């Protein structure tokens, strides 16, 4: 069918009808309709999450503060001080100094262990590459997102802090939520 510009006319309403009755209706009648709409919002109740008391639940794969892990049976650290996480880190916020395990003092499961393991959380971008790089699943991203502090130096997390069982401060989102 050839294009007929005559049929392709859309009537544009530039303004509502301008006569006294229509204007009066628009002013009072439509106002009532608007008031009904806003009142319905009151009936629905607030949607605010009262933050410090209530928290937004996070998804299971949410990338929050890092955690270091131990073997559950032996209690030895999983981290062997290979520094792959530090190499993978794009923000260069991980510092690892490795040391040898001795028969007297075994700290990790492997030959070596991390004598110093520090993450500078003020630099971390929470990309999760460290988690991916780790061959022993020693470091994972947790769910905690409340990490503000008053001093930059307090944001450098040491191995002890990362190993410690974190306070579960963040609720997890349920299936389908």
């Amino acid at each position, binding site marked *: 069918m050839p294009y007929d510009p005559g049929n392709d006319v859309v009537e544009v309403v530039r303004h509502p009808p301008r006569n006294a009755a229509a204007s009066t209706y628009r002013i009072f009648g439509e106002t009532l309709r608007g008031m009904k709409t806003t*009142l319905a919002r009151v009936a*629905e109740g607030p949607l605010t999450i009262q933050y410090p008391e209530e928290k937004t639940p996070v998804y299971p794969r949410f990338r929050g503060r890092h955690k270091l892990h131990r073997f559950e049976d032996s209690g030895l650290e999983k981290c062997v001080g290979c520094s792959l996480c530090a190499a993978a880190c794009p923000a260069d916020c991980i510092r690892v100094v490795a040391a040898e395990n001795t028969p007297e003092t075994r700290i990790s499961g492997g030959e070596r262990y991390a004598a110093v393991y520090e993450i500078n959380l003020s630099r971390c971008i929470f990309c999760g590459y460290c988690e991916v790089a780790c061959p022993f699943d020693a470091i994972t991203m947790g769910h905690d997102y409340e990490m503000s502090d008053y001093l930059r130096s307090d944001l450098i997390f040491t191995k002890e802090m990362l190993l410690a069982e974190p306070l579960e401060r963040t609720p997890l989102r349920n299936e389908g939520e």
Partner: protein
Amino acid sequence: MRVLGEVNSFEAWWVQLVKALIIFGVIFGILPLLTVYERKLLGRFQHRYGPNRVGPYGLMQPLAEIVKFARKESFRPTTSVGFLFYVAPAISIMTAVASLALIPFGNVQHIFGERVGLYGIDVSVGPLYVFAFGGISFYGILLGGWASGSKYSFLGSMRAAAQLISYEVSQGLALVGVLITSQTLSLSGIVNAQRGMWYFIPQFVGFLIFMTASFAETNRAPFDLVEADAELVGGYFTEYGGTGFVAYLFSEYVNMIVVSGIATTLFLGGWLMPFGIHPPGWVDPFVVAAKMMIFITLFIWIRATLPRLRYDQLMSFGWKILLPLATLNLLVTAIIVVH
């Protein structure tokens, strides 16, 4: 003093003084709570809570804010006119409080053997008194905006002048309908004339016009072009900070209370209860307060609902719709009453 003596001739001077202090104290005690009420209700209209952190239910919020405002540095622009800059907010709040004296909170009662009318004064010119002080209160806004020496303030006060003058005409005409029906100018007389039927039924059109014009008179949304924070940065009080700002804010709320009180008196039967209930006299102020709360809630509800009008829309609505409607209402009322 002669004028006051004529107004409430049956009351001793000390009764009038005590009444004035009580009305002033109670209203200024309620004002801060009203600001919290408005913000909490607005919040509900927008799916949020509003202030709820300071004190129980956030009721201490205004206290914190008043302290904040009071401690602000007092300064004014170099282009401002000093004397008027400081006098203008005072004019605004004094005229608002002066109108407050007129709201009748109840009938004449016998307290400690004295006859006491539960109102500030019952003048024989009633609504005209309110209009007179409403007229003077424009000076607060006009002078404030002009004396600030800033373009935004000046634009705001220009708008205020145009808007308030156009809507006061319709407001006045809407009132005349009630005055014709009740055939008195005394506000307590008007309430007593509503014993049969509250005037918002026979004067429904007048009621609508009065309320619409009142929104414009009190500079409330959707007629808050005078303030128009989005385009004028606050209009006439742009340059005010600290106590001057608080004075303007409070006078706006007092105006809201006054308009609610006048609307209650003229259209909702003041202290009268529906269905022929006659409670004891001490209940009257609470009845009036409850009815005023209805209007104040309406003010907030409308603010949450309607967007601000464009300036030409405001003018054409005022002159082309509201004024003819008010005139028509007046004519029809007059014809019916005379017949």
